[in-house]
């Protein structure tokens, strides 16, 4: 299947990051995303970059694989960099190309913003790379627990999330299968004028919808047959528990945050 689409594809493993409580991972990433915006000099950026790289290293997922998965994002990062280079007019003029003046401030700012962008995406994709979709939905359900008081359907939301996540690979497989069957019947999805290619999608979409609806019906029936009746009184096979290692990791991360605030310039 499409190897470009690995943003968020879970890679099984048994590293410290894999074993971390998913709620802890989400919390840390949430904090990281906020904290990234406070970095404003070399030292503070270095601390965050070091944290991200060391975390990546700990996961033992091959770096080449992660970087390849970020291919669609590279464009955005480079685009941001170039945009800053052209638009920002601070500091001294470094070089002049074809009438464009490149300022030192622009270079620094472009680098900083691109790096920030890269760190954000790297860290968030590490979450889905090291956490199974089930763990993520469990964690979200648990973290949103408080909303139940205002009658927010937390369990139903989590169930919807896990069902849709569960069926993404199934649908991809189905798409692959049907597009191959139609390609064998002479459909060309890749070349030809746009109008023809849009037309070629119909023989793919109709069977996909038909099978998705059929599958939904079967799933609903199977759930009812097994007595499913919503979240009330439902227990969990895998209980989420905060371990001491989770707390150590959180403390370590908080230390980094403190370090960041000490080194950033005001």
């Amino acid at each position, binding site marked *: 299947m499409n190897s470009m689409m690995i943003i968020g594809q879970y890679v099984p493993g048994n590293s410290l990051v894999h074993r971390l409580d998913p709620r802890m991972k989400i919390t840390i990433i949430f904090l990281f995303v906020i904290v990234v915006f406070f970095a404003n000099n070399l030292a503070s950026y270095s601390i965050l970059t070091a944290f991200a790289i060391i975390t990546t290293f700990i996961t033992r997922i091959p770096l080449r694989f992660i970087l390849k998965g970020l291919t669609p994002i590279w464009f955005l990062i480079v685009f941001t960099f170039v945009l800053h280079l052209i638009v920002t007019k601070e500091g001294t003029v470094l070089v002049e190309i074809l009438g464009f003046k490149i300022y030192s401030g622009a270079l620094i700012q472009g680098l900083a913003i691109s790096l920030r962008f890269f760190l954000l995406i790297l860290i968030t994709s590490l979450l889905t790379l090291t956490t199974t979709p089930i763990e993520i939905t469990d964690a979200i359900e648990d973290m949103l627990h408080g909303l139940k008081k205002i009658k927010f359907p937390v369990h139903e939301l989590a169930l919807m999330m896990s069902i849709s996540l569960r069926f993404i690979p199934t649908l991809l497989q189905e798409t692959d*299968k*049907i597009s*191959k069957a139609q390609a064998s019947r002479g459909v060309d999805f890749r070349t030809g004028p746009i109008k023809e290619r849009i037309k070629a999608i119909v*023989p793919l979409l109709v069977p996909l919808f038909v099978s998705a609806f059929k599958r939904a019906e079967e799933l609903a029936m199977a759930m009812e047959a097994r007595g499913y009746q919503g979240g009330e009184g439902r227990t969990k096979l895998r209980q989420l528990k905060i371990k001491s290692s989770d707390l150590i990791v959180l403390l370590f991360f908080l230390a980094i945050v403190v370090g960041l605030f000490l080194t950033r310039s005001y």
Partner: protein
Amino acid sequence: MDITFKDVNYIYQANSPFAHKALEKLSFHIPSGTFVAVVGHTGSGKSTLIQHLNGLLTPTSGEVQIGDYYITSEKKPENLKELRSKVGVVFQYPEHQLFDETVEKDISFGPRNFGVAEDEINARIKEIIPAVGLDEKLLERSPFDLSGGQMRRVAIAGVLAIKPEILVLDEPTAGLDPRGQREIMDMFYALHKEQNLTTFLVTHSMEDAVRYADHVIIMNKGTKYMEGTPEEVFTQKEALNQVQLDVPEIIQFLNAFESRFGISLAFKRQSVRDLATQIKEAFEGVKSDE
């Protein structure tokens, strides 16, 4: 069209932690007009193999030759569409590919894509509908109103309407009732003989392989485990058992017959009726000796 595989390797999601070798050093040569059965356990690489036959997959290394078309890791033939008009593929559960408003439109979808003229398409439909055991009254119905078995037949008709020279069948009878299975397989076999097709049948059924195939390829873990005529392959009980395959019933019977009565009858792909005659003759021979 002749089919030749030369050292074909295929790796799914190469260069990722999910890399998975599906075919390994696969080589064989199939002369035109052969009925080939590809047998193997789930995950043995059968489906990957057949997707190489019309360029849906390109080998990671090695070479596939279909008639005059060459498919290698570097290049697919430019006239891939032409190749696909000569290789008809009936996938597993082909009814999942139905999409058009009426049965007629769905069957003519393939030939229309390949630029067959409208009169020719209509002539083909007239010919195919009874061949696959459908009623012409169904032509104006929506394919989604039909029963599972009828949908399967419509989907098969949609592939046959392309008039391929090579017919690839991936477990075409899975999930049908026994009578339907037999009808559809007999239909494919009649077509194979009549139009001198080269047929690839992927199957779990040893009985089908014995009944129809001239040539058998046994796949195991992406490699070719055994190859030969049904007589050569299916008499090797131990080797087959090692890859969790059983010998066909008729050979099981012949073996049991030999150990019970001490009479050894050769396996020559005889029908049950012929076998009964043979047994009768063998017994009479024993009696007249006494």
